[in-house]
């Protein structure tokens, strides 16, 4: 009679045991990576020392001394560290606004590509193909030089849009609210309002759950905040906020808020570029939804809008979200091309700092760290949302 030979596990030689090999393999790989990194670090330190450059971040506290004309409050007497922060905020700002706009453009165009209307469908396809196949730096130069600098008038005869908004080749200038002396008092009403809004939200949510009815608790909190703000506005002596209307002076408009030509060109460039990629992702996502779903929805008598909103898009989202995240990340990183057209982003400011201080290695570490943390922030948020969108398995 045949009996299969069973090898008892204790007699198996270690170098043939896959369980052991797997662990050892990983340990060896990890050790190699660690040794490589260690070698690079030691070598870097030794070489820096031999050329008299020691790794130090003290220069961040020195006075920056150079101008930045974009973003949060800054003056040349501030420190290098603050200048870097201004650049970081500018990068985060263009990335955040760009992501929102690119998503809107991408979803609209993606849906348009599947439209029943021949013209809409072809136009959307033309947009996607044209934009995707031209390098982004070329597009940025196009928006900056051909559209804004050549297409728009000089600041002295700006295009006046309704509401005292002025558009010229220097950018867009519009009225803005600025805090006055009584703002400090009014602020407390806002803080109080915000706290009560949270409380109201939680309370209303519990209440809705108890009576088991649908509702939108966030509306209640918004109403609470508005109420607090309005009451505060009436009680506070004088107006807490004043409208700062731009006025033309010798060279340009003063006052109000500015969106510089560089900012506009970069924003339009990043939005249209990334929008084209997102459009393709959205189209792929929609087409991945089973035909039966659409047919079933039609059989139920849903209109096209509701069919998309209630049936197709929620299912398409599961396919769309992961690649969408990479597009967001590439938009954030592509914003570093802003230096080409004079946008004061992280890279532009850092170039100046490292040229003035000669701290190339330190600045590289800071730049890489900043982009990395920004990217982590975006991908963390998106992964969280992605998990929530996945179907709940029962």
């Amino acid at each position, binding site marked *: 009679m045949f009996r299969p030979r069973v090898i008892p596990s204790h007699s198996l030689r270690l170098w043939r045991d896959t369980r052991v090999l797997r662990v050892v393999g990983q340990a060896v790989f990890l050790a190699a990576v660690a040794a490589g990194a260690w070698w*690079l*670090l030691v*070598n*870097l330190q030794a*070489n*820096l020392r*031999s*050329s*008299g*450059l020691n790794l130090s971040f003290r220069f961040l506290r020195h006075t920056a*001394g*150079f*101008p*930045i*004309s974009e973003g949060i409050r800054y003056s*040349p*007497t501030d420190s290098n560290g603050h200048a870097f922060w201004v650049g970081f905020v500018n990068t985060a700002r263009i990335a955040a606004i760009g992501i929102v706009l690119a998503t809107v453009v991408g979803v609209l165009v993606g849906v348009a590509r599947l439209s029943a209307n021949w013209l809409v469908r072809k136009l959307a396809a033309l947009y996607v193909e044209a934009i995707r196949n031209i390098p982004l*730096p070329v597009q940025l*130069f196009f928006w*900056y*030089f051909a559209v804004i*600098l*050549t297409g728009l008038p*000089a600041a002295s005869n700006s295009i006046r849009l309704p509401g005292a908004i002025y558009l010229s*080749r*220097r950018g867009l200038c519009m009225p803005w609210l600025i805090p006055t002396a009584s703002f400090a008092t009014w602020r407390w009403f806002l803080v109080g309002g915000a706290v009560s809004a949270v409380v109201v939200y939680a309370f209303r949510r519990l209440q809705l759950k108890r009576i088991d009815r649908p509702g939108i608790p966030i509306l209640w909190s918004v109403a609470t905040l508005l109420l607090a703000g309005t009451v505060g506005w009436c009680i506070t002596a004088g107006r807490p906020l004043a409208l700062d209307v731009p006025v033309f*002076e*010798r*060279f*340009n408009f*003063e006052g109000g808020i500015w969106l*510089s*030509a*560089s900012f506009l060109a970069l924003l339009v460039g990043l939005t249209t570029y990334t929008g084209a990629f997102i459009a393709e992702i959205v189209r792929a996502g929609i087409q991945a939804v089973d035909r039966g779903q659409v047919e079933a929805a039609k059989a139920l008598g849903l209109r096209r809008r509701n069919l998309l909103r209630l049936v197709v898009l929620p299912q398409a989202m599961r396919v769309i979200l992961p690649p969408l995240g990479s597009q967001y990340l590439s938009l954030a990183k592509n914003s*570093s*091309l802003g*230096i*080409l*057209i*004079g946008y*004061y982003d992280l*890279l*532009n400011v850092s*170039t*100046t700092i*490292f*040229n*003035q*201080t*000669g701290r*190339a*290695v330190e600045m*590289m570490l800071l*730049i890489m760290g900043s982009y990395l943390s920004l990217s982590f922030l975006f991908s963390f948020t998106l992964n969280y949302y992605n998990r929530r969108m996945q179907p709940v398995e029962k």
Partner: protein
Amino acid sequence: MRRAFSVVALLVLAVSLCAVGQQTLEAVLARGKLVVGVNAALPGFGYLNATTGQFSGFDVDYGRAIAAAIGVGIEFVPLTEGERFTALQTGQIDVLIHNTTWTLTRDSREMGLDFCPTTFYDGQGFLVRRADGISSISDMDGATVCMTSGTGTEGNLADAFRERGLELRAQAFSDTEVAFAAYEAGACDCFTSDKSQLASLRSTASVPDDHTILPDTITREPLGPVVRHGDDEWFDIVKWVVFATFFAEEYGITQANVATSESSNPEVRRFLGIEGGMGAKLGLTEDWAVNAIAAVGNYGELFARHLEPLGIKREGSPNALYTEGGLIYSPQWR
């Protein structure tokens, strides 16, 4: 700029991978060529002709003079303002001749650079449109100013406006050509840089006469070759090649007559390598200075060839010979 970022990142990696400690002269001799970092976009100083692929300019010729003095070939590396120091610090180039201003920070241990004698005394100025009716800095309250990022001009500009209590809107670009194109297209009211560069850029404008350089000069900008800190032997060679061009002009030694020059003046004889053993003291051949002048000419010839066509005047400026009231002056050849 994306390219600048990747170049700098690569260079940083290069520092961490290879040792830079080697002596520059030995490295140059072993390699058989000198690697010079230059500007490729500044006509008159350092310019790359896109059709011929040839570099030309005042700074470029100083590179050729050094190579001729050592007796090796030459390679030019075009660099942007943002890349130039890292390229030198990491040993990618042997000498940087890139209209670079001599400042304390750059000369110090902190940045690891050494500055050779000044070859051109410059100063930061302003280029404006004639039609705007600006006649001095004080007229520029609230004006937008374009410039290249990664240069000292940004700080000087901020200082000049701050000192006068003027409001400044700045716009910095990674490339000088792009910055100037933006100014020309109307993104800015003013373009600021060293006056020599303004003269050079103005000559490239579509209608040069529409633009004018303001009389104000806000800084002293001594420009000259730069080497790595700590390699004194190499520092001496570059220094004395520069002095050779000064000395040759003072004693009427030119590109045309240097090979046949004879003199009874002992100092000139030492310069020509006929006596004194000056070459050996620098680790070079005795005819090094003759070769340098034969390659590019003396200081006056260099100036006339590259800078006068831009409309840069020498008379009455610090760039005149000291015998004519300028600052161009060579120490003793002894």
